């Protein structure tokens, strides 16, 4: 019959269509999965390198201790102690006088702020920043000064209560990404009495607009001091800023006023509260906890004495079982102008700012970062029970989806800097808490560029960026790498197996990555499963250096560039950007001995002389260090 025949055909047709659809969906999901794997691999590379860098910091901290010991042994008075170890407490009237002496010229077309700030001022500020204007140093200093006054009145841990009508929004790391901050405000509204915000640290470093982010956040703090809460992160630390870009941003944008801003900023950071407690149940802190975290101690200590993670308090020589050595000697009390925290208090704060949750039980030193701990679900359970808490909201770790939940729902990570490592690397997120309900998460990914590209293009971008960085690492360690390769090539054939190459590379670079699958992407000289290791560097970026410099020294200087920058800044007592030849030589000797580097003194002298451009016995160390860098071939971009 005609009827059933056509129904039968219809069914057959739709079955066919369904099968075709499944086929296409299936194929597409496979394609997508392969791209996702590549994206994750790239993210792992970024993360590994980021944490390895943080570890280097700890070496630097030890070097400072070493330097201090050296000074203590050789000098009898505090006069020669670099100011950084022994700062004088600032006097209030000094600051205000200095600031009032800065004039804002008529030619300045940026926003002009009147104090006390109003909501209108902040809106003005935001509009100006959207137009890429730079706030005049005078106003920056005034905002910082006013912010300090407010922050000084706050306790170490701020207690707030969530109410049914006033929602609370919690944001994580922003790292100078102004467009992410604006995106959050766009989606969620500007802060106000009815729209409260907690910003959980790491406002600065890495992104291009750390100053603007800080100005917006501090301005909102000034206008709504009871509705905007700022927690300190591990990057609210003036020594971290030297390494991770904020100091550079300030000097570039503010030039001669930069130093004043840096000084005030250093102090303002120390007054940021270290946490927020909501309804006595939800603790919001930047990093995490340790097994001995004690909220009572954290609430009572003088938090402004915590200046930098690289400046631990000096204690009498004590054997430190965790690191297996004796810590340094205490200089005579007369030498120290400023009070310190006890080591116990200092450790408490460092753990709060640096720790990461892990699924493994117990509490272990955070070896990736070199500071804080890894804490397991049992630690979380104990601390929550001990202090009557329900959960901990923290940030500090970049997550592909902008947030993460672990330890059975008790630890929430929220990270608000999208595309943190590179265009397309990750989403950002924020969360909203209302009275007694579970948190709601909101995700975003800023950037017009990202939207216009296909998935494939976006993954390519992230991957290429990761490989660039790896390439830089490899070229900086070229000498050591070739030495390691030669060990596997006793007959000097110039070839080693892929797996030997992987082993050697992992040993030298100290990065745990899938080197076997990365090799063909990094090194294009592979034949029959063997790597021609001498030629393997020709596709990598080039190290640029002054001609007189010898190869070994070049690599050392490029590799330790950030550390050296910090060290030179410290020696530079008058912040002039110049150090004397003698200071340079003394420093370099200390540095090499501590880091076990073998460099001939004559090479150093020769190099230093060539860098003394004015021939007046002083070296502009910023210029000195800039002369050593890694340059990528194709575009000559740094």
């Amino acid at each position, binding site marked *: 019959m005609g009827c059933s025949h056509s129904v039968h055909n219809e069914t057959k047709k739709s079955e066919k269509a369904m099968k075709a659809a499944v086929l*296409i969906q*299936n*194929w597409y*999901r496979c394609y997508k999965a*392969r791209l996702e794997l590549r994206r*994750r691999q790239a993210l792992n590379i970024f993360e590994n390198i980021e944490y390895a860098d943080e570890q280097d910091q700890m070496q630097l901290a030890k070097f400072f201790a070493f330097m201090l010991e050296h000074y203590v042994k050789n000098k009898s008075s505090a006069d020669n102690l670099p100011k950084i170890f022994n700062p004088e407490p600032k006097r209030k009237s000094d600051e205000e006088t200095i600031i009032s002496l800065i004039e804002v010229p008529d030619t300045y077309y940026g926003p002009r702020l009147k104090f006390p700030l109003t909501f209108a001022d902040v809106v003005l500020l935001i509009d100006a920043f959207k137009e890429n204007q730079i706030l005049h140093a005078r106003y920056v200093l005034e905002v910082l000064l006013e912010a300090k006054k407010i922050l000084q009145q706050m306790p170490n841990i701020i207690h707030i209560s969530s109410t049914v009508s006033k929602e609370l929004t919690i944001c994580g790391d922003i790292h100078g990404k102004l467009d992410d901050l604006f995106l959050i405000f766009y989606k969620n509204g500007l802060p106000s009495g009815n729209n409260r915000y907690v910003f959980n640290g790491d406002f600065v470093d890495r992104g291009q607009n750390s100053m603007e982010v800080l100005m917006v956040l501090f301005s909102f703090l000034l206008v709504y001091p009871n509705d905007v809460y700022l927690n300190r992160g591990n990057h609210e630390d003036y020594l971290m800023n030297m390494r991770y870009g904020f100091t550079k941003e300030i000097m570039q944008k503010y030039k001669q006023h930069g130093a004043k801003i840096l000084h005030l900023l250093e102090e303002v950071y120390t007054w940021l509260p270290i946490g927020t407690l909501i309804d006595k149940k939800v603790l919001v802190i930047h990093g995490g906890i340790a097994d001995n975290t004690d909220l009572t101690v954290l609430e009572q200590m003088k938090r402004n004495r915590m200046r930098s993670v690289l400046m631990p308090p000096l204690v009498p020589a004590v054997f430190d079982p965790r690191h297996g050595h004796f810590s340094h000697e205490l200089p005579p009390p007369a030498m120290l102008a400023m009070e310190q925290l006890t080591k116990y208090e200092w450790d408490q704060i460092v753990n709060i700012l640096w720790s990461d949750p*892990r699924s493994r039980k117990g509490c272990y030193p955070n070896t990736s970062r070199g500071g804080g701990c890894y804490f397991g679900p049992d630690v979380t359970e104990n601390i929550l029970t001990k202090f009557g808490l329900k959960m901990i909201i923290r940030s500090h770790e970049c997550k592909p989806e902008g947030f993460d939940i672990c330890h059975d729902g008790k630890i929430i990570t929220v990270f608000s800097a999208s595309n943190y490592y590179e265009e397309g690397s990750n989403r950002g997120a924020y969360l909203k808490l209302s009275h007694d309900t579970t948190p709601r998460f909101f995700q975003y990914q800023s950037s017009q560029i990202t939207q216009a590209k296909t*998935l494939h293009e976006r993954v390519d971008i992230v991957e290429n960026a990761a490989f660039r960085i790896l390439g830089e690492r490899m070229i900086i360690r070229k000498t050591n790498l070739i030495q390691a390769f030669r060990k596997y090539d006793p007959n000097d054939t110039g070839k080693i197996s892929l797996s030997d190459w992987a082993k050697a590379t992992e040993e030298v670079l100290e990065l745990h990555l899938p080197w076997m699958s990365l090799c063909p992407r990094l090194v294009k000289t592979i034949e029959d499963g063997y790597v021609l290791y001498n030629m393997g560097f020709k596709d990598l970026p080039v190290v640029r250096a002054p001609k007189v410099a010898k190869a070994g020294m070049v690599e050392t200087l490029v590799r330790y560039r950030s550390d050296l920058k910090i060290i030179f800044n410290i020696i530079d007592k008058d912040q002039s950007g110049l150090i004397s030849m003698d200071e340079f030589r003394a420093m370099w000797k200390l540095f090499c001995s501590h880091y076990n580097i073998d460099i001939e003194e004559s090479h150093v002298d020769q190099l230093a002389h060539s860098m003394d451009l004015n021939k007046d016995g002083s070296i502009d160390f910023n210029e000195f260090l800039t002369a050593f860098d890694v340059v990528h071939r194709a575009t000559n971009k740094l």
Partner: protein
Amino acid sequence: MTPSACKIKINNLLNKAGLLELQKKIKEAFEVFDHEANDTVDVREIGTIIRSLGCCPSEGELHDLIAEVEEEEPTGYIRLEKFLPMMVKVLSERRYRPIPEDLLLQAFEVLDSAKEGFLTKEELVKYMTEEGEPFTEEEMEEMLSAALDPETNTIQYRDYLAMMVIDEN
């Protein structure tokens, strides 16, 4: 040793080497998602891992595979020691092979009921989000971003497939 015994021995050696290669490949893909380096991944990532190894199970088939290896207590995790042998079997038995290009083309042609050589945006969206194992909104958007010709608002599926093949290689 007789020639045939020799041959068997060589085959066995090759197989052993082949097996090690295979295991290494699977381990490396697994490790990308093993965030804490404790040989465990979140069950939600297993689909990506299996597919990135060149297998194309449907969502239903994936569900079955997961059921075989998911930990019972606590749920939500998959351990390498269970995943590895299963995946070795799947790969060496060549199960869930990727779909050949010509079959894909045929699939698009089936959906192209008017036989015009292209699909309209509405047609593709309807099929992908309503039929078979439907796409999420995100998956649909992503496919469209590369597949849609913005001028005509159509999917020129022959060109699209040709481009995807090049991309992959």
